[in-house]
């Protein structure tokens, strides 16, 4: 029925409409604010169902358009899904005897959105004011009157940033070996794809949240999310929801022969 709804697909007209907008978003918070405004919903009472779905649509669209997705968008996607799941939990909390006033799972997000909105507006106010070089001009060249006068003293003026930039440039030239990044590439999407598929093997479905262990880092989260998107795109899994406020489940999809492209080796063994 309608309850078990997979993420909708997109028409081309939508794509061209969205791409223009995508450039405007400064990040996940900006996108969320846009969705809240677009749907004319109360920011203090965000209907997560709608907003999460539309948010994921954008992210998926970005991916389908082969736009690079900043990790932050994916982190937020998972956050939204987690909040959504948490909102189902009060019943369980009550069992443990807690009449404590549990904070609304959305509270933190709402605070961030409000704060972001405040600064976004402040930025707009600043930009709308009189800006030097745009609305007002000062003389930005040395007065000819002073040309022939040699300064007698030279107090120096320099910022820390200039000093460290100078140093960085030297380091760039001289020794690359010493300042290497610690391997951030430890988790690959391919690994996560294989992991998800093997965990789904022989099962009808599993909870989306169960893809994430108790402790996970950002890279893990991002890779996992991208893996799920990739699997959706390849029609190898289905993302379903039991009801509108229900948990999100992933389930193996029936693959039609010949319609699937291999995700560069990663899914190759899993396809069989």
């Amino acid at each position, binding site marked *: 029925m*309608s*309850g078990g709804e997979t993420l909708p697909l997109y028409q081309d007209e939508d794509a061209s409409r969205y791409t223009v907008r995508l450039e405007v978003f*400064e*990040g*996940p*918070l*900006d996108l969320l604010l846009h969705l809240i405004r677009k*749907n004319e919903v109360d920011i*203090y*009472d965000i*209907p997560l*169902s*709608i907003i999460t779905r539309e948010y994921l649509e954008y992210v998926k669209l970005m991916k389908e358009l082969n736009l690079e997705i*900043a*990790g*932050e968008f994916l982190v*937020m996607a998972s956050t939204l899904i987690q909040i959504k799941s948490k909102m189902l939990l*009060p019943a369980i909390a009550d069992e443990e005897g807690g009449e404590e*006033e549990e*904070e*609304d799972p*959305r*509270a933190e997000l*709402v605070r*961030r959105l*409000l*704060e*972001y909105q*405040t*600064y*976004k*507006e*402040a*930025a*707009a106010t*600043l*930009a709308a*004011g*009189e*800006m*030097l*070089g*745009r*609305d*007002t*001009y*000062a*003389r*930005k060249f*040395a*007065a000819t*009157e002073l040309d022939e006068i040699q300064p007698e003293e030279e107090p120096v003026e320099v*910022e*820390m*940033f200039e000093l460290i930039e100078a140093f960085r440039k030297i380091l760039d030239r001289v020794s690359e070996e010493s300042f290497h990044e610690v391997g951030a590439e430890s988790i690959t999407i391919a690994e996560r794809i294989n992991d998800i598929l093997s965990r789904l093997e022989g099962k009808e479905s599993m909870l989306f949240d169960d893809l994430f262990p108790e402790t996970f880092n950002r890279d893990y989260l991002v890779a996992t999310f991208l893996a799920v998107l990739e699997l959706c795109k390849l029609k190898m899994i289905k993302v379903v929801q*039991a*009801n*509108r*406020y*229900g948990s999100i489940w992933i389930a193996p999809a029936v693959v039609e022969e010949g319609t699937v492209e291999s995700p560069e080796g990663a899914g190759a063994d899993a396809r069989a």
Partner: protein
Amino acid sequence: MPGLKSVVESLIFVADSPVSLDRLCALLEEFDRNDVRDALAALREEYGGEERGVVLAEVAGGFQFRTPAKNADYLRRLTRTRTAKFSQSALETLAIIAYRQPVTRAEIEYLRGVDSGGVLKTLLEKKLIKILGKKDIPGKPLIYGTTKEFLELFGLKDLKGLPTLKEIRELSETTRFEQQEELPLAVSAGADSDGDGGD
């Protein structure tokens, strides 16, 4: 001997950044501070007319001659004057730093929700922000603040001159959310066609 007002006018005109009263007094030590102040006041009056093409602005803690905004369209015709352009991310970051300084990169990124390293670097290069030092918390992160150039760019006298932040409607405690423990299904059902009674 030239009059004080004339000298002050010349000094402000020639200086390459706003000149404060203190600086004027230091440069003109043979004059009384009150007289310098009076000269400034007289100049402000003189350059304050509606029809002036040059005005005496008070910015970044000092005084500077500038053109009035209403003439901007004509000045853009001068080829050399480039219009200042700011990306939205630069403006947002700048606003956060201006209002929250001293602020760390992590704080900025929490508020913006995105990595802000590149923007910070650009703003540092443009001298609109500077490194103020390190915060005395574990990890000793760098802290950032705005510069005099920032004030000059936005024509602000000082940081107190920043437009007041639109007040955030306070999340009215838990009561607000308690009332909504049972989420109104109507909202989502209405927006999404056929609702099915899940539970």
